[in-house]
C-alpha cells in the first residue's frame, strides 16, 4: 500500500514511527484511526523493522512522552505525527 502522505481522512491521524533501526513507513505516513491505541502502530513498526525486544522503550512526540495504551486523541495528537520510539536514557553511575 502506498504511503498516505497528504491529508488525514476524517477520524484518522497520519503516523510515522522513527527508530534507529529505520522509519515505518519508510516514506510518508500511515493513516490510522484516531481512536486506535498508539501501541498498535508501534507493534506494527517493530514487526516491519525487525525489532524484537522493546521492553522499557518510550514513545515521544516533540519531547513529550506518550501513553501508548491510550489512543491518539487521548494523547492530544492530530494531523501528521512523527513518533520517536526507543530505549530510555540508560542507567549508570549518576555522578555529577
Amino acid at each position, binding site marked *: 500500500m502506498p504511503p498516505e502522505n497528504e491529508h488525514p481522512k476524517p477520524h484518522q491521524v497520519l503516523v*510515522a514511527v*522513527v*527508530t*534507529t*533501526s*529505520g*522509519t515505518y513507513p*519508510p516514506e510518508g505516513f500511515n493513516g490510522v484511526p484516531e481512536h486506535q491505541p498508539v501501541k498498535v502502530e508501534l507493534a506494527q513498526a517493530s514487526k516491519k*523493522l525487525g*525489532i*524484537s*525486544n*522493546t*521492553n*522499557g*522503550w518510550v514513545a515521544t512526540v516533540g*519531547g513529550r512522552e506518550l501513553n501508548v495504551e491510550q489512543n491518539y486523541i487521548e494523547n492530544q495528537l492530530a494531523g501528521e505525527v*512523527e513518533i*520517536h520510539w*526507543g*530505549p*530510555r*536514557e*540508560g*542507567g*549508570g*553511575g*549518576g*555522578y*555529577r
Partner: protein
Amino acid sequence: MNPVAAKALFDLSVGGLDDRLLTARGWILHSRAFPSLDISFRSTERLELRLRLRCDDWNDTPPSVDLLAPDGGLLTAIPTQRSGSTIFNAGAHARTGRPFVCMAGVREYHEHSSHVGDLWSKYKALDSYSLGGILIQLWRGWQRSWP
C-alpha cells in the same frame, strides 16, 4: 570479534540512521566509517554535544565513547549538568583521564571499578543496546541533563 564480522554488524546497525531520523532529531552525522561513528546532537534548547563511538570489536565489546567539542576536539571538562543525575561523569576516567559517559552499553562504564561486575554480555543481545539503541540512550541523556 572477527574484524570482518564486526564491520558487518556495525554497517548493519548504522544503516538504520536514515535522513528522516537524523533530521527529525537534530543529529548531524559526520562519519559512519567503521570503526567510528561520529555524530553531533543539536537543539536550540541546549549546547551541542559531539560524540565519537569507537566500535572496534563490536559487538563483543561495547563502544568507547569520546565526548567532543563541536569542532571535534576532545572535551577535557564538561559543563555543569542541569539535573543532578546524569550519565555524563565529570571525573577523570582511569584509562582516558577525561570525562566520560557512565552508562551501561559504553565501554568506559563497564571498565569502571564501580561497574566491572555489570557485564556487557548481559546487554549485548538486547535491541536497546544495538548501536542505534545506545545512541538514542545517549541522546536522551543529553536532552535531560546537558545545559
